């Protein structure tokens, strides 16, 4: 009845992933968000490595290494630098207050879990029960994007969504073909750089990184 130990560790890491997604929803400081994102990447790469070891799919080792380099080392470092340069390390300023956000988050988790149950029965992988957690992480990251009006938390939400999708891919189908993963990783990396440049422009124009100011750009 009880799973083998390495699978229990994968389950534990999946639960940690969800915990971090929730913690991101309730986190108030931007540097805290970046740190949580780094931890999420670490949990993700560790769980991918364990799945690679237990199922013998070697290309997953490369995915794990890529995830580690990009999402635990490169991007958080880049974000820390960005935050320091833009001087925005302040409160996140959510649009609806944090307790309500978390209640909506719980509703999304219940929805995702119920949605995932029939799908995970169809899948053939050993980690299929974590599909619900992956979907829940995606939805929670989306919620974070919706309820934050500052630029950097929105981008982190987008990246966390990508983390969730990656985890869904590994748990449902042992990852995507390596070429696809490299392509996605490159896209994300380039996107983050471009967004960084945009942040400077936005700050120049509006003197603040609050995206509500973008509404001024619309035509009357």
């Amino acid at each position, binding site marked *: 009845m*009880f799973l083998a*130990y390495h699978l*229990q*560790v994968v*389950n*534990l890491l*999946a*639960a*940690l992933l*969800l*915990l971090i997604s*929730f913690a991101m929803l*309730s986190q108030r400081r931007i540097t805290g968000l970046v740190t949580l994102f780094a931890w999420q990447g670490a949990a993700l790469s560790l769980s991918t490595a364990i799945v690679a070891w237990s199922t013998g799919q070697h290309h997953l080792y490369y995915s794990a290494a890529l995830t580690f380099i990009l999402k635990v080392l490169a991007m958080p470092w880049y974000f820390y630098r960005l935050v320091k340069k833009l001087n925005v390390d302040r409160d996140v300023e959510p649009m609806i207050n*944090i*307790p309500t956000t*978390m*209640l909506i*988050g*719980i509703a999304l*988790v*219940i929805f995702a*879990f119920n949605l*995932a149950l029939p799908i995970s029965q169809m899948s053939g992988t050993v980690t299929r*029960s*974590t599909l*619900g*957690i992956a979907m829940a992480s995606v939805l929670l990251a989306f919620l974070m994007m919706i309820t934050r009006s500052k630029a950097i938390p929105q981008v982190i939400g987008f990246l966390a969504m990508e983390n969730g999708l990656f985890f869904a891919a590994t748990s449902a189908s042992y990852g995507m073909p390596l070429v696809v993963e490299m392509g996605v990783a490159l896209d994300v990396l380039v996107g983050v750089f471009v967004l960084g440049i945009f942040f400077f422009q936005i700050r120049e124009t509006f003197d603040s990184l609050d995206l509500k100011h973008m509404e001024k750009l619309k035509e009357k």
Partner: protein
Amino acid sequence: MNTGILLQIAQTLLAILLAPLLMGWVNQCRAWLQGRSAPPLIQPYRTLKKLFHKEAVIAHNASPLFRFAPYMIFACMALAAGLVPTLVNDLPFSPAADAIALVGVFALARVFLALAAMDIGTSFGTLGARREMLVSFLAEPALLMVFFTASLISHSTELPTIVETLAHKEFVIYPSMAFAAVAFWMVSTAENARIPVDNPTTHLELTMIHEAMILEYSARHLALIEWAVALKLFTYSALGIALFVPWGIAPHGDFAALPLAVLALLVKMILGGATLSFLEAISAKVRLFRAPEFLGTAFLLGVLGMLIHFLLEV
């Protein structure tokens, strides 16, 4: 049966006697982390002795409830200490109250303390009572959620059965208990008036939650309440140990495992006290109106733990 009752009384007395020592150890660790020298480990005992010798000074308008409350609070905490398995599991008293009743015992003590605080009619007493009830209205359900998660795994709300399931079945990692552990830490800081919810060493009345409620107490009443607070911290630590690291507690009727149980308890309490001070040292006290958010997060983490149980562990 008779040895069971003797063990039960011994376990409760041990908890009562050791609680100030745990408080002293936590203060010691905190002093080390803050780079200063601490008072000796037995200082809390000396404080209690000093307080018991003093003459009680009671406000003119205090009612009998004020003088009755410290005894009631101490009795409730002693009852709680007797319920939580620290050394031996499944003692004769445990069928009388399960985990939900344990939460009820804590609530009973808290209500009496809040009422006693309101009794004198000064601003500090009512301030403390109001803040304490604010913190507890979310902390109590969060604690219940932690117990519910544990009870879903062990199919029981009886503490002995929970401990037995978690300790003596195969070593399984329960992700839902990971969530419950985080929630439990958050709740225990709220209930025991530790950072990040309340600063136990503050002298500024407007920043107090728990201290403000006991400002009017002196002498033996204050001694009983301070002892009850230490006992509550001990009970919460024992509860955390029983739920999350229960290996080492002697099973029912197994007296040969007692010395190992005592040793395990001491080691776990030392580590637990050190961890508590460490976590206190790296956190800052939250603003009072962020405390409901903090505890709301604990509550929702508890709920998440239950949901994870359904997904991953059924």
